């Protein structure tokens, strides 16, 4: 391991870590729920955090590409560097009709889908008429 190269990589790391990526997000409304879909390439379930505080949903995903383990370790090893070790972060103020306590999320192939049910009061309900 070339020590001088390590120093260069640490500077690179620091430079890229300043970048926060805002992931592309789809918003879909259904009669009973909303769905948000985020592109988070490289993210794993344990690297994603979803929090709601005072009506603001914060998505954070920390995608650490360890340079020593996964990347180059020698002189002139990088040829192109278009994505870095930056974190994904997106904050969205959510509507009051969302029941955030029933929020669920799933992550597949680097795509996170968050399901936000609407509050029951807002749903159209069919009321059965019982025979007397």
């Amino acid at each position, binding site marked *: 391991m070339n020590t001088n190269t390590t120093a260069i990589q640490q500077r690179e790391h620091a430079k890229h870590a300043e970048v*926060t990526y805002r992931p592309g997000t789809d918003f879909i409304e259904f009669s009973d729920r909303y769905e948000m879909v985020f592109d988070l390439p490289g993210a794993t379930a344990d690297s994603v955090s979803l929090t709601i505080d005072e009506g603001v949903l914060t998505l954070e995903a920390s995608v650490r590409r360890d340079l020593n383990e996964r990347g180059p370790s020698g002189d002139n090893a990088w040829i192109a560097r278009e994505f870095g070790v930056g974190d994904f972060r997106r904050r969205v103020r959510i509507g009051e009709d969302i029941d955030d306590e029933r929020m669920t999320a799933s992550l597949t192939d680097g795509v996170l889908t968050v399901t936000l049910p609407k509050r029951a009061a807002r749903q159209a309900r069919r009321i059965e008429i019982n025979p007397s």
Partner: protein
Amino acid sequence: MLSTMSMLRSFDELSRRLDRAFESVGQGVARTQLTPALNIWQDAETLTVEAELPGFRREDIEILATHDTLTIRGERVRHDPQGAEAVRYERSFGRFERTVSFGVPIDPDGISASLRDGVLRITVPKTPEARARRIEVTGELPAGTNPRPAELPETSPERAGEASNPESSRA
């Protein structure tokens, strides 16, 4: 029957409803492009290409190689959600193609690729001629003797660098 204009208007109203339901807060570098970002690095024998392809499946991706280029093609298909009342899309869908020219000969038959968590990783072996080789520095030789590696002192230039740069050795 709804006219086209009133249909557009009603869709626009639904979009505004979504805007009210989800108001974006804060900043960041937007990442919505379909054509994947690439990281490429090399060691003496191998070139490695990583491409960000969230939501792609193996069958959506095609990799083609020549003696010194690699082409990645793919298509991400949007499946419109059943029963959606309103949508606001930022993610990109469709076809992309990117070609990388390495400038050194590669072995197309030795290429392997894996897809994990939306990141495609392609390992590309260089041909034997293209591999970096370490050339031993030899001492001055008396005429007629076989070449032998010179006896260099223990301290290599890298170690000298470490000694003069305490910050890097702390890592």
